[in-house]
């Protein structure tokens, strides 16, 4: 149980797909101008990555290593198609807004990377938790970026006004250039926190010795 939790947990912070591995950045910028879209996209990716990890893990014994990448890509494309058709049927508004980026889940590096690095070598249950953790880390990062951009750019979260009418929204935050700048600053702050933690660790080791 402890192991499964570790597998799940590492995707949240240590190997966070967006901030740490800098993979799949396209959606992190494109659909985070408001929290609703960011959350929807995050959950979609979480679903695809978990489902694909399970499928790859089940079939790992029968897939010839030479053709593994085409097999993985076909499996991802099938799962994404299922997801898109489901969203089209039940949440048509969201589907229209995210249409292009939902299709592009197919080529997200993080999904293929997890299949290759983890699911192809591990049994079904750990693979499931690995997908869930990575997906949750991804969704969490997306929502985090979404909150910052929506609060400064529109004064609201999920369409509910928070900062009041006297707040003059900084429109740049929800426009494309703002996305780049926000992510740049976030990566810098993550580095800063990482450096600080390393320093603490070094100081602790120094005092132990």
């Amino acid at each position, binding site marked *: 149980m402890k192991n499964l939790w570790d597998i799940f947990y590492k995707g949240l912070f240590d190997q966070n797909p967006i901030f740490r591995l*800098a*993979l799949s*950045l*396209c*959606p992190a*910028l*494109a659909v985070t101008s408001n929290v609703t879209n960011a959350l929807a996209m995050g959950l979609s990716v979480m679903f695809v990555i978990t489902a694909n990890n399970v499928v790859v893990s089940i079939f790992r014994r029968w897939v010839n290593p030479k053709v593994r990448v*085409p097999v993985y*890509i*076909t499996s991802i*494309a*099938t799962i*994404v*198609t299922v997801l*898109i*058709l489901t969203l089209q049927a039940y949440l048509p508004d969201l589907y229209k807004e995210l*249409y*292009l980026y939902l*299709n*592009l889940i*197919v*080529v*997200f*590096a993080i999904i*293929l990377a997890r299949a290759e690095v983890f699911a192809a070598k591990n049994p079904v249950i750990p693979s499931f938790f690995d997908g869930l953790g990575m997906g949750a880390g991804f969704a969490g990062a997306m929502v985090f970026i979404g909150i910052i951009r929506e609060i400064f750019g529109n004064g609201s979260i999920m369409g509910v006004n928070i900062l009041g009418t006297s707040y003059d929204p900084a429109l*740049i935050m929800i*426009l*494309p*250039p*703002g*996305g*780049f*700048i926000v*992510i*740049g*600053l976030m*990566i*810098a*702050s993550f*580095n*800063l926190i990482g*450096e600080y933690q390393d320093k603490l660790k070094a100081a602790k080791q120094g005092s132990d010795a």
Partner: protein
Amino acid sequence: MEEYLKLFVASAITNNFVLTQFLGLCIFFGVSKNLNASIGMGMAVTSVMTLSSLLAWAAYNFILEPLGLQPLMLITFVVLIASLVQLLEMIIKKHAPALYNMWGIYLVLIATNCIVIAVPITNVELHSNFLTSLVLALGSGVGFALALILMASLREKLQYADVPKSLQGLGISFILAGMLALSFFGFSGMITL
């Protein structure tokens, strides 16, 4: 004629895939450290994108649509593009080794890139005919190359700048890309796709 010119400018500049729609960022940040590599990559992406979107257009309009198989679009496009890239790699390796040495490594990267698959999907969405899909693909490729080359030139200058330690690398590159996007944003509204 005017319509095609408009589409070309719109896809290359006002709707630039990298800077306004955030596609192909992995390559954009990965390759733009070096100006020569950016030029090679820009050309490789433009040619692969043009070829693959024509192929995808044909597959969609002559096979998928008549048979009512539109839900299979995504799988078809992915497989088509991946095999096209593989085929190109083999042909170039055999017949033009010099070219392969220059471009070979980029071709592998292109196979699973979002910008290459986004163009055929956009074409389906816009109900493009043969010529408009050709123009859209070319324009998007040129736009990508333009953004990549501009970014690479800026980053080469950045090497002489005194950047705070935590911002170094990806952080400052993102902020730089933001500035670049801001300047492209000045063109928005001029032409809409």
